[in-house]
Structures are given as structure tokens and as C-alpha cells.
């Protein structure tokens, strides 16, 4: 067994060559070295700029999780910088409360920032993208207005003095090292999150939300956690900003600054840590190279953003992704290994069927499904066929919780499945694939499959943040299981390849591998054979049969009658939302009405 396992480790030569963790860390180590030795060659002026870059990166590292990974267009994050700056300064100045030591003030600011990060971010769960973007802009304006109006606390337009940190951080270089240290810690923490199930789950929400839900990822909890973290970190950046400026007034917190943070992430590339880090440094330093550039700086940032969006949506990260420039083999074959399924799926789950009883659902005047009875038994393959518009996908969507039936019941082991809880289906070991593959294009195939196993992780977000042992155990297990799943469907050689480079058929098998990560009791496949070659359809059929043999109940919605008749134990034929016929493949093939309506002579 060990020899088999070692054959599946990603460090072995495969399509793209080995990807060692050291080479990924190299750019960070280089930056660390430059940063630590900076005082040796940079003068006082560049020291201020470098400190500023560190402070901005502290904020951007947290915002990166929200924008770059989570895909939420939070343009007005300067509000949290403002909050953090004022909270720290006011607490240290002691005009409202007795004067507090700066570190304590910074910690309190972090808590305030976390709370407000959540408040500002939560509308993302209810609002569409553009609307959310506008509300964040509104928040940024509001915070500035409040800072102006609340004169007794914030000093109004005159502002308040920034905190001074005690020695050894009071001098210019001392403070630089303090900010650099905080920036380095933030880089480490967010890199840990990026390489954890939380980071991958965020990218899934960003690019493939329906697939994320099907994998059990709860968007509110995850986004809420990330907003808390991002808000806290932004507020800490605010406290450091106030110390750097030595005096803060509301007019220092401009919308231009907010745009800078946001654009740094987009220029750097979404889903990357290194990219936005380089982006932040670039945007902080760029205006300083030529005095005339200062006036045009926001214009330049906007031009850069437009160029990136139109030409290189992946940003700096895409430019630096040398690994994925190497060409792939052209004649790749998908060769599943059904023998591995037993190790992957484990023991057969409890007996008990998934049944639909008289389920009906209409959209407006159209009866999508009308009085549908269906039973999927464990260990058996059930086919669902019918012409376009007959209700096949609707049925699948009802079972997986994306639509709610208006009449009838969907039962598992006799108990009714809860409505409106589509991300709970994964916990019930009901997995599915989609008519059009929903994958995270910019992530690797392996990462996409690992998304399927998100709910099996035990470590909390904080443990991932700090790379504690349980997080590392989770990652190792998840990685091994995902490699096994990829091997089972025949794609392990493509594990490190960026998913958007794959052929359509390979993406379909990737989705199956992802679904298998749940060790599903029931697997729902939505037109898995669409776009596959004849050879691939054969292999797909063998794979599905093997999955069923390990005890999973499989529902296959399909257009290819041959595949259905080859592998299904039962077949249901739908027409206009009603059952036209149901029975074994032999019965259906002979059924006169089915032949007339659908199969042809």
C-alpha cells in the first residue's frame, strides 16, 4: 500500500515537473532579506517610503483575502484605516479615556476594526456585486464625516496627534522594523490561510459559488470570519499609519487611498499573496520616482487597473507563474483506476434510499416537474432521461437543494430533507456535478479537488492562520485524499496544472473527483458525458459502475441513451415534467411511447 501511496505524491515527476515548497517561498525570503537590510542602503527618505509600504501592506494583506480570494468588491476599505488610526490615537492621547499604552490601544483598535469589518462586509451576503461596491464607498464617506463631526473625540477638522511607540520603536528605523515585523507576520498568516481549506473555499465562493455550496461551504460563516480578520488587520494598519504621520486629520483618509489598496490587489492578481505584495510596493513607490508623477498618481493607478483587467486579468501573479507556461502533452488520455475507489470511498454507507414523492415545481405558468416519484437506492445506478425541458436538471436541482419543491417531499432514509439548506447536502453525503463544469480556473486541478473535501477539515481558521499542527495534519490528509481521487478518475498527472488549461472532458472528470472527496452516499451527475469522446464515455461508464459497486447510489441525468442503457439498473423517462415511463433498461427500450417520443425507431 505504501508503494502505491508514494507513487501518488505530487513531488514525483509529472507533467509540469516538481513543485517544491522552497521555490515558492524564495521570493518571500528575498523580500525578507531586502527588508531587514534596508537601513543599510536606504536613506531616511526611502525609510519613510518603505515604512509606508509596510503599513499599507498590513492592510492590503487582510483586504486581499476579501477581494483577491473572496472576490468581494470592497472598494471603501479606507474606512477601517480611519477607524484604526483614530481609535489608537484617541486612546493614546487620553482625551476621552485615561491615556493607554500604545500596544494596548493598538489591540483595542484591532477589536474595533474586526467589528466594523464585519458590519461593512456583511451586506455582501445580501447584495449584488455592484451594489456592495457602492455601499462600501458610502461607508468610507460616512466614517470620514463622523470623524469630522465628532469634534470632542476626534478633534474634528483639526485632528489628533498620532501615537508614539516606546523605545526601541520610537526612532525612525526602530519604527520601520516594527512595521516591517507586523507586515512580515501578516504575510505569513495570510499565506497560511491561502494554503488552507479556508483560502481554497474563498476562491470557490468567488469563481464557482454553486460548486462551493455543493461542497458544503457555508458562505456567511466564511466571509464573516474573513471580514473580521481583515477589519482587525486594517485597523492595526491604521494605528501604524497614525504613528507614521505623527498627526492625523480626516483629509488624510482619501478615497484615492482606498482605490490604491484595491488596485494593488487587482494588479497583483487574485488568489495570490506575492502578487498583491509586489503590487502594494509598486504603487507606494511609483509616485516617488518623479515629482510630476505625484499629481498624476491616481490617474496612473487607474490606467494600470484598466490595462490589467483588459490584458492580464491574472495580474503580476499571472506574469510570474512560470510553472504554468510549460506546454502540456497534446495526446493526453484519461485512464480511470476504479480499483482505487475502495480505498477512497471506504466502507459502504448505511442502507437507506433517497426518494422523491409526488414532487412538483412550477416556474410561473410552466410546470417544470409535476408529480414526480423517484427512488435512488444505494449501490445502484439510476438514469434519468428525457427531451430538453423535460425537467431532468430541475429534478437534480431539487434533490441537491438549489430549488425548493412546491409540493411533495424529498426523503433520505425516510426523513424529509430540509429546504433552503443546500450547503448542508454535503454533510448528508449527497454530492453532485454540474451541467457546465464549475471550477476555479486560476487554481490547480489538485486544489480544485481539495475543495471537495473542505468540510472534512477539523482545524479552525485561527489554527490555519498560525499554521498549527492540526491545520498541517488536515492539509496533508486532504492532499493525499485528493491525489487518490485524481488517480481514481485518471487525472493524477495533471494535478499541479492550472485548471483553466484543461480540456473540457478533463474538467468533467475533475468535477467527479471533487464530488468523490465527500465519500458520497449519493452521487448526482448532471450530463457527465456531454462533450466526451466515445472512448471517454466508455471509461466514464466503467467508473460510474465501480462507484456504485462501492455502495454509493448514483443518479445520472443524461442525453446519451447508450450510456444509460449500458450502466443503469433503473431508468426513469421524463417528458414535460411528468414520468413517461420507469423501469429497467430493457423495459424502457421496448416501451412504445418512449420510442416514439424520444428514442426513435
Amino acid at each position, binding site marked *: 500500500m505504501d508503494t502505491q501511496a508514494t507513487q501518488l505524491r505530487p513531488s514525483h515527476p509529472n507533467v509540469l515537473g516538481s513543485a517544491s515548497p522552497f521555490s515558492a517561498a524564495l521570493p518571500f525570503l528575498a523580500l525578507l532579506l*531586502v527588508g531587514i537590510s534596508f537601513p543599510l542602503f536606504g*536613506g531616511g527618505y526611502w525609510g519613510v517610503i518603505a515604512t*509606508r509600504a509596510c503599513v499599507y501592506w498590513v492592510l492590503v494583506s487582510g483586504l486581499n483575502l476579501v477581494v483577491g480570494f473572496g472576490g468581494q468588491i470592497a472598494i471603501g476599505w479606507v474606512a477601517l484605516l480611519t477607524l484604526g488610526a483614530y481609535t489608537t490615537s484617541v486612546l493614546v492621547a487620553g482625551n476621552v479615556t485615561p491615556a493607554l499604552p500604545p500596544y494596548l490601544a493598538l489591540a483595542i483598535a484591532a477589536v474595533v476594526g474586526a467589528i466594523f469589518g464585519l458590519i461593512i462586509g456583511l451586506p455582501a451576503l445580501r447584495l449584488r456585486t455592484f451594489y456592495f461596491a457602492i455601499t462600501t464607498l458610502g461607508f468610507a464617506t460616512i466614517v470620514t464625516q463622523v470623524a*469630522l463631526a465628532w469634534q470632542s473625540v476626534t478633534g474634528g*477638522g483639526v485632528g489628533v496627534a498620532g501615537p508614539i511607540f516606546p523605545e526601541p520603536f520610537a526612532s525612525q528605523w526602530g519604527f520601520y522594523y516594527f512595521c516591517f515585523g507586523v507586515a512580515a507576520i501578516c504575510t505569513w498568516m495570510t499565506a497560511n490561510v491561502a494554503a488552507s481549506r479556508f483560502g481554497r473555499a474563498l476562491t470557490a465562493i468567488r469563481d464557482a459559488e454553486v460548486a462551493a455550496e455543493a461542497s458544503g461551504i457555508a458562505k456567511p460563516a466564511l466571509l464573516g470570519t474573513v471580514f473580521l480578520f481583515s477589519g482587525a488587520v486594517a485597523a492595526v494598519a491604521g494605528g501604524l499609519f497614525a504613528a507614521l504621520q*505623527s498627526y492625523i486629520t480626516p483629509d488624510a483618509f482619501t478615497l484615492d487611498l482606498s482605490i490604491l489598496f484595491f488596485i494593488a490587489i487587482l494588479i497583483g492578481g487574485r488568489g495570490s499573496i506575492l502578487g498583491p505584495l509586489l503590487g502594494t510596493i509598486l504603487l507606494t513607490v511609483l*509616485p516617488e520616482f518623479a515629482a510630476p508623477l*505625484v499629481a498624476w498618481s491616481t490617474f496612473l493607478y487607474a490606467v494600470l487597473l484598466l490595462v490589467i483587467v483588459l490584458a492580464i486579468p491574472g495580474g503580476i501573479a499571472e506574469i510570474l507563474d512560470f510553472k504554468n507556461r510549460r506546454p502540456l502533452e497534446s495526446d493526453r488520455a484519461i485512464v480511470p483506476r476504479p480499483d482505487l475507489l475502495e480505498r477512497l470511498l471506504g466502507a459502504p454507507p448505511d442502507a437507506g434510499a433517497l426518494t422523491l414523492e409526488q414532487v412538483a415545481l412550477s416556474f410561473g405558468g410552466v410546470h417544470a416537474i409535476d408529480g414526480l416519484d423517484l427512488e435512488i437506492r444505494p449501490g445502484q445506478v439510476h438514469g434519468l432521461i428525457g427531451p430538453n425541458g423535460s425537467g431532468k436538471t430541475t429534478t437534480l436541482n431539487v434533490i441537491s437543494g438549489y430549488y425548493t419543491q412546491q409540493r411533495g417531499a424529498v426523503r433520505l432514509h425516510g426523513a424529509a430533507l430540509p429546504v433552503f439548506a443546500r450547503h448542508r447536502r454535503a454533510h448528508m453525503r449527497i454530492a453532485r456535478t454540474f451541467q457546465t463544469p464549475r471550477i476555479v480556473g486560476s487554481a490547480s486541478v489538485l486544489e480544485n479537488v481539495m475543495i471537495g473535501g473542505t468540510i472534512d477539515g477539523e482545524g479552525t481558521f485561527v489554527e490555519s492562520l498560525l499554521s498549527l499542527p492540526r491545520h498541517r495534519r488536515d492539509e496533508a490528509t486532504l492532499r493525499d485524499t485528493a491525489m487518490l481521487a485524481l488517480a481514481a478518475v485518471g487525472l493524477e498527472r495533471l494535478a499541479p496544472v492550472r485548471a483553466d488549461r484543461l480540456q473540457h472532458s478533463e474538467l468533467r472528470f475533475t468535477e467527479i473527483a471533487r464530488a468523490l472527496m465527500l465519500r458520497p452516499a449519493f452521487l448526482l451527475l448532471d450530463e457527465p458525458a456531454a462533450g466526451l469522446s466515445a472512448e471517454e464515455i466508455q471509461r466514464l461508464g466503467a467508473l460510474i459502475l465501480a462507484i456504485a459497486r462501492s455502495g454509493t447510489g448514483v443518479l445520472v441525468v443524461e442525453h446519451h441513451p447508450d450510456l444509460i442503457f449500458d450502466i443503469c439498473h433503473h431508468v426513469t423517462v421524463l417528458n414535460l415534467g411528468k414520468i413517461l415511463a420507469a423501469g429497467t433498461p430493457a423495459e424502457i427500450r421496448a416501451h412504445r411511447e418512449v420510442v416514439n417520443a424520444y428514442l426513435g425507431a
Partner: protein
Amino acid sequence: MAITRRQALVSAGAAALVSGLGKPAIAAKEPILIGYLPALTGPSSSTGVGINRGIQLAVQEINAAGGVDGRQLELITRDTQSDPTKAVNGAAELTHGQKVSVVFGPVNSGESLAVVPLLARANTPQIHPCWVDTLTDPKKYPMCFRNAPTNQQIGGAANRYVVEVLKRKKVAVISDTTGYGTASVNAYVPMLKGMGADVVYQGNVDAANPDLKPELLRMQSAGAEAIMPWSVNAGFLSRIINTRGQMGWDVPIVGQTTLGSGQTQALLEKPDYWAKVYPNNFRPVCYAAGGKLSDRTNAFLDRLKNAKIDMRDTLLWWIALGYDSPRMIAEAMKNVGTEPEQIVGYLNKLKEFPGVYGDIAFTADKHDGYPDNEVVMVEANSLKDGAFSLAPGYGA
């Protein structure tokens, strides 16, 4: 971060200096670097743009006359864009990067608040024209001097005019939401009350608000007999003047100098609206009782005409202040050289620098150089060739 070209140049320059130690004549021809932090763009740039015209003219003249001890003055300009963050970056570059001898600016209070401590840490003498009271402190910032009036001086003159000359007891005080505006209101309301006036309205309004009628109606219903606006935003001030005119409300408007600027004038709906508007201004650049300007000012106006410098969209005193500042610095350097302690020592004993804009004087305990009696009130619509006449009832 790799060593930048600028760093390389600076070190190359230092190397050249060292190698040239045996030839003092070459070192003496090095230009004197003066750092300059104006806000030339951005929302609060009108002051900076006006001052800039004066500064450029003065530096040209000084250099044309041979500079200071044969050394040319070089202005190193860093536009702060009305942004305190950029002001800090600029100040850091001027001191650590360019190693200037003196810094003039920033010209906006919000930016100065952040920059003054930084320049103090960098041991660089600073002269700035910002009005907010807390911006000089001879003990905390011994190298920072102000060659303009303080908020107290300005407000004092305006408040005295309203209460004692115009004899209005019920006053409305209004500002925009900038640091300068809010600081002014906070300073002037107690001052008015101390003079026995009754502040019936006090408010900070967003300068971009297109309709100030509700505010003026509130002032009117509270019984205000005078309106005192404090803002450098021409749009805001013009809206106040226009609304008063539309309402046909006959009360004087007394306040910030920008009430009289060309920009404000351009935004008025009717020229007659500019009647009974009394901004602060400064005696040296105003017409005295006989309708005459001082010789110094006349000579200055001639120089501006020759240099084709436009005054119509700005204020004369801004240009004059800009003109005086490098001349004062050059004077200091002519007397004591360019070392920071020497310059500071000279300024601390400066009995009178006869500027076009005003006669500046400092002591070791007083770094606010503008004399009280040169702050005056003028009549806005008496504007002629850039200068104003004193407001009615104002003594000689």
C-alpha cells in the same frame, strides 16, 4: 529595494565634494537648496497656486542679481496635492533625500500638522504661512517659524470689526468641514462671546452642498445681524454671498480673505452681491485712506505687471507672501550662512523684515511673525488692480 539612481547620484555628488576639498571655489558655487511644499493641485490648492507665483518671481530675481554670496537659490518643489500623506513623503524627501537647508511650507494647516514634527526631528528650519494656532511652539519646535498671522489675529480683527465697528451683537458663524474651517469656528465663537456678542448660529457645512438656503434661513430666523464665514473654498463662499443676495437679506458678511478673491468673484450671480462683504486683508497691500498704495507695494505691482503675472483669479496678498518668503530666507543666509542653527539664531533676533506683504519680526519666545496692527478688514467690491480699500469705519 535596489539602490536608486537618485541615491547613486547623491553619493556620487558627495564623493565629488570630498575630492574637491582642496578647491573651495568650486564648492562655493553649489546652489542653495530650498525645500518647498505647496499644494498646487487638489481641493485646497488655491492658496498654493497664488503663493507659487510670488515665490517663483522672487527666486528668479534673487538669482538674476547673483544669488546669495554667488550661490544660486534652487527651489525643490514637492506638490503635496492637498494630501497630508504626500506632504509627509515630500518632507521626508526634502530633508533626508535632497538635504535642503530650509523648508518653506506646507501652505495648508492639515498638512502642516503632520509635517512640523517630522521637520523638527530632521533638524531642518521651517517657515510656513499656515494660520492654525497650534502650528508654532517655540519650545517643542524651536526651528519652526510662521510668517503669516495666526487664527487668533485674523479672527480678532474680524470679530472686533463686527462687534465694535459695525456694532452688531447677534452673529452667525459658519465654516466648511475642513480642518481650518472647524478650527476657526472653535476658536472664534468663544472669542465673540468674550467680546459680549451673542452667537445665534454656529455651523460646519459640507463645502460641496449646492444649497445653503436652509442654513441662511436658519440664521435669519435666529435673528442674526452679521454672517461670518471661515473657509478658503471659493465655491462655498460664493454660495453664501449669492444666497444672501437672492434672499434680499441686508446683513454684512465679514470673514475669510478668500471672500475677496477673483475666484469667488467669478462665481457670483450678480456683481452687486459683492456689496457689504468685508474680508480680512493686510494693510501693506491695501489702499490707504487717500486711495494710495505704499511705494513698496506699487513697485511690487509694477514688477508683477512686467513679469506678466495674473492676479485676477487669486489674491494679491498670497502672491506677496510668496514673494517675501524666499527673500527673507535669502536675507538670513546672506547674514549668517546656511547652517540650521545659524539661520534659527538669526530669525530669533529678527527685528523687522520689511516684506511687501508685512513686516515680519520674531523673538526666541514668539515664532509668530506677523504684526497685529497690519491685519485689517477691507471692502470686497473695492477691488482695483489687485488691491482693496479699507472697510468703512476702519481707522487709518
